[in-house]
């Protein structure tokens, strides 16, 4: 996280998008430097890198998280 503001807009460097699906492993798309608008954010979590690296993403099958409604 390279920066943020009052409206919880955030700037991420070296960002990656993870796409979850039931049919295949997690797809990881490198995005680089991104500004993400606060409205679109549900949650920001601090990643424990040790745990994160221990997970083999290709074995993970998961439903996408349902969208926010209302």
């Amino acid at each position, binding site marked *: 996280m390279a920066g943020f503001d009052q409206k919880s807009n955030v700037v991420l460097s070296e960002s990656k998008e993870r796409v979850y699906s039931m049919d295949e492993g997690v797809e990881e798309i490198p995005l680089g430097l991104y500004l993400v608008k606060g409205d679109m954010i549900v*949650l920001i979590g601090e*990643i424990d890198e040790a745990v994160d690296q221990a*997970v083999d993403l290709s074995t993970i099958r998961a*439903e996408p998280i349902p969208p*926010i*409604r209302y």
Partner: protein
Amino acid sequence: MVHQQVTVELKNDLSITGVLKSVDQFLNIRLDNIKVLDEARHPHMMAVKNCFIRGSVVRYVQLPGDHVDTQLLEDATRREALNQAKR
């Protein structure tokens, strides 16, 4: 209510339990030591220990009932209602 164990239910039906660290003016919530309730279905946050939840996506916050002074809440609410009415 800070440092209590709470469960935050989001508008996408996810429930996250954790220790409440802080709440701001937008009701954004910071939780420590988090756990997603249905972890088998949502493994996305395995490596996440603490987080910031945007207030606008919160549906409910479940609180530990025995740590809430309901009398205090009701008095504060009446006082606040009175202040609003005076404007």
